[in-house]
């Protein structure tokens, strides 16, 4: 087992990841959108892609089931995975923010309730501010929560702000920037050194070229 295994998250970053590897001359001929297969090899059988749910990419890489992966910083932050985060690929830029009703201000007395798909991110943000919160984990339509009194505020990804606006919410505070990251398993980084280091370098030069 000497190949490099890449964890590919389905969805937003799927085609971006495949394109990034294509630019490095690494292609997966069997890979099609409709295929039900979950493992694909490249032409030279040096690389192997495993297709996983995007939010599982950090887990696969942390545990060494995959050597590398491309993942959104949002997913990475929420997972808390212990991996090397070697490159900011600059793709898919957006931000984490606290949003709520326009007239909302943090009260002094009671604990605030935060609804989010990312309870860990929410907790870390408020704990750093020295505030105690209650979190409610939701899996979608998070904007609804403050509208119907389920929570005081939400912590969510904000791209354009359109969804917030249409639901009468505003960004109250920015939390952090988000973009796609190249992550590497710490042991793979140390043991498959040559292959992985050159892959990182090549990918870095692509990122730099495209930024210019």
């Amino acid at each position, binding site marked *: 087992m000497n190949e490099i295994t890449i964890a590919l998250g389905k969805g937003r970053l799927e085609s971006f990841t495949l394109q990034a590897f294509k630019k490095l001359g690494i292609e997966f001929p069997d890979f099609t959108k409709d295929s039900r297969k979950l493992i694909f090899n490249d032409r030279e059988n040096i690389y192997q892609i495993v297709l996983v749910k995007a939010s599982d990419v950090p887990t696969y890489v942390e*545990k060494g089931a995959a050597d590398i992966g491309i993942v959104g910083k949002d997913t990475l932050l929420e997972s808390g995975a212990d991996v090397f985060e*070697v490159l900011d690929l600059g793709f898919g830029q957006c931000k984490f923010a606290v949003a709520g009703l326009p007239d909302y201000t943090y009260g002094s007395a009671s604990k605030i309730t935060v609804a989010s798909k990312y309870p860990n991110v929410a907790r870390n943000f408020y704990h750093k501010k020295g505030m105690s919160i209650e979190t409610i984990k939701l899996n979608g339509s998070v904007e609804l929560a403050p509208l119907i009194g389920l929570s005081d505020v939400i912590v969510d990804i904000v791209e354009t702000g359109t969804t917030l606006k249409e639901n009468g919410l505003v960004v109250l505070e920015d939390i952090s920037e988000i973009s796609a990251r190249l992550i590497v398993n710490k*042991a793979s980084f140390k043991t498959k050194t040559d292959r992985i280091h050159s892959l990182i370098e090549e990918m870095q030069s692509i990122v730099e070229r495209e930024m210019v």
Partner: protein
Amino acid sequence: MLHESKRIPEGVTDLDSAALEKKESLISTLKQLYQKNGYRRVQTPIFEYYDLFLDIKGTIAKEKMIKLIDRDGKILVLRPDATIPIARMVATNYQSKSSDIRLSYFTNVFRMNDREQDLQNRELTQAGIELFGRSDVSADVEVIKLAINSMQELGFKDFKIDLGQANYFKELVNLSTITEEQLQEIRTRIENKNVSELQKILDEIDLDTTFKEAILSMPLLYGTPEVVLEKAEKLALNDEMKHELDRLRKVYKKLSVEGYQQFLSLDLGLINHLNYYTGIIFQGFIKNYGKPVVLGGRYDQLTRQFGWDLPATGFGFYLDDLLSMMKVN
């Protein structure tokens, strides 16, 4: 019915005879090796006072310790780490000894797994050695050599011992005006080789550019030892930093001369496993296994906290990881 009488809790496991015999044969290989090298076995209690681990700077996180309440209301914890109790034992019981103290242990440690994704056991078997009373380079060499020999004795061929130097970064921080809060942010970015975010953090703090440059280089100080050492030398800001690097160079050279070069790599960005480490630190990886199987290094200030100032270095292997790796091979 949840059948709790039939199930066992998450993170612990039964071993059948075959599995136990395998584990014991591995233990006996290491026992012989450590004994041959003059390390004598010791044992510490399975639970001790919570305060022992709490009072020591940079030990296991509070929430990772498994706690019990004693009759008198004092909090006890199941042994979360092997080294701290041994350091306590040596500092309180061995003071009459004048020469070096070489000890080995085969023991279970207990840790809470706090995240859903932590497959990690809550009961882990560790094997390791501790060498007290020696601060010279040859002690570091002896310990690292024994870690490499352990891997070899167990039949592993494709592995790497990654060397770092905890004091190089500590010195750098001491010289600068970084606050504790900033340090935490910086530390995790270095640890995760996250150069882009490290850059952003440094952009926002008021700090001399020579420091910024040195800190920004930390995550990239890995790879071919000669090259890394040369780069790090140029970034060293005072004699202490140079001195710490020089130690690392000496250890690397000595190990190379003895034929261990192929197993060694260098990473000065390796700064954050257990903060009690003070000098040369290392971790070992086996190819195709996703996490380190051995952690070790120098911890010269640990016994001071128990009232006896004694330089020390050592390592601990995660035996369960070695076992599951042997299954694969």
